[in-house]
């Protein structure tokens, strides 16, 4: 049978739809998740299947409806917030970090907190500074949250299904430049565990850990370098919390060189965390300094030439790999 290829968005829609069919306690909240089917088509068709209470349009009160989810999750339902752009839920960081993330702990494990927060991240399409944020590093900093940042339709479906079967709060972050990308997704049921990296390309000379869209960019860079005779291994952690340190250590043991590519801000970012872990536990395996390639530490500008200047691309990634190989 031919491998089925579907888009990232379709893969997540399948995951959500399948789980909603199984579990009547799942409901979705967000602006336009009802009849409209979601700003990114994330709930297309579900309103007709499950009705307005399970596909609930909200007023523009992100803090409010995320705070509401905490109470819902404690009392027998499983809320999904479809927040459109990760920038919008900065108003809810108090509810996320101080309530949702902490209540399992504070109740000594007597309350569960199965809240799924899902929506788009990433720079692209001249979305400008209020529609380009990522913030996964911030969420990985807080204890009590799971943070998934898939880069393929397959991973997206498997991780979303996992999230909907897990009692922890999960941030599920979808890069907007990946939503229309297609990839193989089997018809059969599967889930992907959190904290398991995926080797997106095997190679022997340098390890590149990349996040979300940067995985695709790194793959392009590796293709180019292959033609120059350079063998690049590419790892996608898939979840930044938990983070699969073992897989990265294993790869660095082989290559001796590590570059982390992350389009978002460098300071206290996930690239720093990866570098710190390897500088601690993989120190003896390193043949060269650990390098990070990040987007500029600046708000995201609108104009295409400015926007392009603030994020890594296949060329800058390839250049950085070449430099690292010379160290």
């Amino acid at each position, binding site marked *: 049978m031919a491998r089925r290829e579907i888009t990232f968005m379709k893969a997540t829609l399948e995951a959500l739809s399948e789980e909603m069919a199984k579990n009547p306690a799942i409901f979705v909240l967000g602006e336009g998740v009802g009849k409209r089917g979601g700003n990114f088509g994330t709930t297309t068709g579900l309103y007709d299947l499950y009705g307005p*209470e399970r596909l609930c349009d909200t007023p523009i009160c992100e803090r409010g*409806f995320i705070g*509401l989810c905490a109470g819902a999750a404690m009392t027998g339902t499983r809320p999904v917030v479809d927040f459109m752009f990760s920038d919008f839920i900065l108003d809810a960081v108090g509810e996320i970090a101080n*309530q949702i993330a902490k209540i*399992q702990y504070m109740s000594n494990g007597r309350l569960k907190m199965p809240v799924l927060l899902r929506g788009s991240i990433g720079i692209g399409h001249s979305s400008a500074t209020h529609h380009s944020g990522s913030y996964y590093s911030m969420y990985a900093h807080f204890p009590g949250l799971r943070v998934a940042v898939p880069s393929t339709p397959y991973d997206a479906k498997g991780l979303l299904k996992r999230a909907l079967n*897990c009692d922890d709060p999960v941030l599920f972050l979808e890069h907007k430049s990946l939503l229309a990308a297609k990839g193989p997704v089997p018809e059969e049921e599967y889930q992907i565990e959190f904290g398991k990296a995926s080797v997106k390309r095997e190679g022997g000379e340098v390890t590149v850990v990349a996040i979300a869209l940067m995985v695709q960019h790194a793959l392009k860079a590796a293709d180019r370098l292959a033609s120059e005779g350079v063998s690049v291994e590419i790892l996608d952690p898939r979840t930044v919390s938990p983070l699969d340190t073992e897989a990265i250590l294993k790869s660095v043991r082989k290559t001796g060189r590590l570059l982390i590519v992350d389009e978002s801000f460098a300071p206290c970012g996930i690239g720093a965390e990866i570098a710190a872990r390897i500088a601690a536990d993989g120190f003896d395996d390193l043949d060269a300094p650990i390098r990070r390639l990040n987007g500029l530490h600046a708000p995201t500008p609108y104009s295409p030439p400015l926007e392009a200047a603030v994020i890594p691309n296949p060329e800058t990634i390839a250049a950085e790999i070449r430099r690292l190989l010379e160290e």
Partner: protein
Amino acid sequence: MLGKDDLLRFYRMMQTIRRCEERLAKAHQQGLIPGACHTYVGQEAVAAGVCAHLRKDDVIFSTHRGHGHALAKGVSPRELIAELFGRATGCSRGRGGSMHLFAPEVGLMGTTGIVGPNILQAAGAGYSFKLLRSDRVSAAFFGDGAVQNGAFHEGLNMASIWKLPVLFVCENNQYATEVPFRYASGSPSVAARGQAYGLPGVEVDGNDVLAVHAAAGEAVERARKGGGATLLECKTYRTRPHAEGMADFGYRSREEVEAWKARDPILRLQRQLLEKGLAGEAELRAIDQEVEAMVDDAARFAEASPWPDPATAADHVYSESC
């Protein structure tokens, strides 16, 4: 109609709260409480009057000033005092203290040290109950200070448009720490703000347990029957400082405090019981003694309880399911 038993139940509950608080205040001075302690003295009628309508499977969400709500919802004095003493036997197993009381077994779904979130969480429980076609109801208790917070606005609006089975109980004790409500609020009435959300807003004398009970009864019934949420403003007063150990007369006068002590909700109920001939002095003293004994026992229990094991300090950050 309320009978003698009901009134005596109110009396016992309010005294239980009062005596626990007084014991905690003393314990705080003695250094038995390592963190903060916000007492509920003067406001007992609200917790007692509202929670009398709640079933065990109904839920409440409270604040930094939550001891009274915890007790009224069914947390034992032992579990409450042990929690403030930081012991493994406390309702939050020592993780919480005064501001983080959890007892989901009896419907206390948490108290929060941050002003606001509990309003939203109560709305969320209401959402669950609606979605699950349950007749359970949910209540948020919060102060006048929380009314100026965005959580109040967003929570009440959502509860209104989705007709959620929620009671929003504002205990307007006229101060947020030391900031007067009349200064902080653009509107002198909390209850009147119900209108902005299309919700019934009811003002009640929060020092009169019968009045609170009556108003809460209507609201709970409406919620259970699918009639949606209610905003209840209980006008009341805390007669101790914001938190134990804090100064109290930089922002309010001794006279004001004394005037409110004269309106003490427990004394008032006591007078009513005696005047109506529903109970004699002896009967009330007997209850007082039982309560006193229970609180003594609780304090002894708490002090004798073990400390939590430091090796468990990072347990339950995540569930075991994922």
